[in-house]
């Protein structure tokens, strides 16, 4: 199936650029330039060089022996957790900040949930000598303290979002307000495949390096380019978009997206947007959105700060609606158990976001020859406190 953004910035029924006029010039400038800049030889060279020498790409496609044994399939882990800064987020921040420099921007702002995107943004700003301000929900700042300090050590200003649910949604609101008040010379680095067009497409393209590598890495080990399954967690959905990207039109590859079900989808404390959401507009795009009958955005819940978002990228709303991807959800409990299991079986402590993807391995009956690629989007160092509080290991 072709999954591609159209001229108006839509994937099927979802996407667009629902932004106040104050942001129009910036977003329009980006829309007019992102593809041509990304296609420049010089840009590609610099981007690829940094991914290789700074991020440490290609990341390994690791055959997880004991996990494979347990689930009766060939399970590979795409080790995005080994990227510099500990997650896939840096692929996108390098891309966007290189792009921002070419557009003459001097200041960078970002939002962050778990802190991974904030750290990745602060890191690249340090690398390129740019001023950096990161908005983070007050609650997230408390539950992801090490990442707050990492950003500060890297020279970024971290500003708490104190409105609403004080999490990722509100950090995004604050970043947008900052951009409205300081539109000239500032680029807003959105960390996921959300936001007004062209952000979802731009971020998906920067993250598509994940599936590009999966293809040639599988060819080396399994002599095929297509796995049977690609599995990834979805908050906004950037790691999933990157892991699925080059398989969208390979219909035999099953794409599995895993959302956070918090305490359970029926408890009202969940972040599983495709289960609980309806079409709406938030942060610049039309997408599936958790909301009341009155159209007020519902505050989501997940143990994982990176999945604690009431919407999903429009590309995922389209993947869901078109049936191209199958959507699952995993509860806090299931994710934590899966995270601890991976630690014991493979010696890898995953980020709690990625642990949600691992949790669905329990729900699928594989045949022994099935090649399963699971995108391990981040490492668990930042979540140590949550693991400790959880106990049961």
């Amino acid at each position, binding site marked *: 199936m072709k999954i591609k953004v159209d001229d108006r910035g839509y994937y099927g029924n979802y996407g667009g650029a*629902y932004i106040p006029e104050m942001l*129009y*010039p910036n977003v329009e400038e980006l829309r007019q330039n992102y593809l041509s800049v990304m296609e420049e030889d010089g840009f590609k060279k610099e981007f690829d060089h940094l991914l290789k020498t700074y991020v440490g790409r290609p990341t390994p496609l690791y055959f997880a022996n004991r996990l494979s044994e347990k689930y009766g399939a060939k399970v590979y882990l795409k080790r995005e957790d080994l990227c510099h800064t500990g997650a896939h987020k840096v692929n996108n921040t390098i891309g966007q900040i290189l792009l921002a420099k070419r557009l003459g921007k001097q200041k960078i702002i970002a939002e962050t949930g778990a802190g991974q995107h904030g750290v990745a943004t602060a890191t690249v700003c340090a690398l390129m000598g740019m001023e950096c301000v990161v908005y983070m929900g007050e609650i997230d700042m408390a539950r992801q303290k090490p990442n707050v300090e990492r950003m500060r050590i890297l020279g970024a200003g971290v500003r708490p979002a104190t409105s*609403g649910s004080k999490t990722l949604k509100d950090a995004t609101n604050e970043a947008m307000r900052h951009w409205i008040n300081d539109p000239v010379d500032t680029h807003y680095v959105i960390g996921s495949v959300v936001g007004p067009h062209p952000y979802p497409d731009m971020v998906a393209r920067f993250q598509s390096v994940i599936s590009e590598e999966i293809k040639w890495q599988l060819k080396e080990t399994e002599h095929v380019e297509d796995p049977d399954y690609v599995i990834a967690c979805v908050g906004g959905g950037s790691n999933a978009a990157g892991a699925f990207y080059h398989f969208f039109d390979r219909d035999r590859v099953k794409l599995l997206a895993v959302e956070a079900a918090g305490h359970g989808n029926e408890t009202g404390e969940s972040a599983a947007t495709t289960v609980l959401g309806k079409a709406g*507009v938030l942060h610049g795009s039309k997408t599936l959105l958790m909301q009341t009958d009155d*159209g007020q955005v519902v505050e989501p819940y997940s143990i994982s700060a990176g999945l604690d978002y009431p919407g999903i990228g429009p590309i995922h709303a389209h993947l869901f609606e078109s049936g191209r991807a199958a959507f699952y959800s995993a509860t806090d409990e299931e994710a934590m158990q899966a995270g601890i299991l991976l630690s014991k079986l493979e010696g890898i402590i995953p980020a709690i976001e990625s642990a949600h993807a691992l949790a669905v391995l329990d729900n699928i009956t594989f045949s022994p020859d099935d090649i399963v690629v699971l995108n391990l989007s981040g490492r668990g160092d930042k979540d140590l406190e949550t693991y400790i509080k959880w106990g049961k290991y």
Partner: protein
Amino acid sequence: MQMILTENRILKLFEKKRSRILSVYFSAGYPNLNDTAQIIRSLSDSGADLIEVGIPFSDPVADGPTIQESNKIALDNGISVKLIFEQLAEIREHVDTPIILMGYINPVIRFGVEAFCRNCREVGIDGLILPDLPMQEYLENYKSSFEAHGLLNIFLITPQTSGERIRAIDRNSRGFIYMVSSASTTGAKTGISQDQVRYFERIKEMKLDNPALIGFGISNKETFNTACRYASGAIIGSAFIHVLKNAENLRQDIRTFVKSVKE
């Protein structure tokens, strides 16, 4: 359709008056849930020329702290789109001042665009300001419903809006253009700088087909007068929310405030 628009109170207002128009914004359901109709009546009685009733939203990205707070309190009070229409059901028995609903697009989509427009017409709404509804989207998917129900869609322009885009907005506007005075969220700045005056002059010299009202940063007589030198009038939002917040007697305090700006 044309017949409906000839009845439109915004168009009628600008037919007879082209200067010193005062438009006042407040959030429905604030400070108390059932103050909405009373505030409209008091504004109208006090001489406000236009009234903008805000539809509170959980995530008002274009608003500063003052209107964020009034949105939140109104939602906590229990306001909803449905309830706003109920509160406005009899407003046209008392008030002939043009009324605009202003809010974000999501609650409108959730309510159903067609149903929303129908309700607007039934209670006597004249126009809509939906800052996050882009022009192209409006033209393709909303315009016909709005016009069928006699509703004008008011567009924003900002100091960063290009001349070419301002012309396009002017072509697609009816009623007036909402001229955002600076690159900011609502209530973020007070006073009017030389840069802003240059922007006001630039727009004035463009001789647009539609009148313009200046909003954001207009808070008192002085800023209102400055705005009126360059545009047909101005819009006060956050400063009026402050009045409501501290009001001891709504009717009296609203009257005092409106008079203090206009006279």
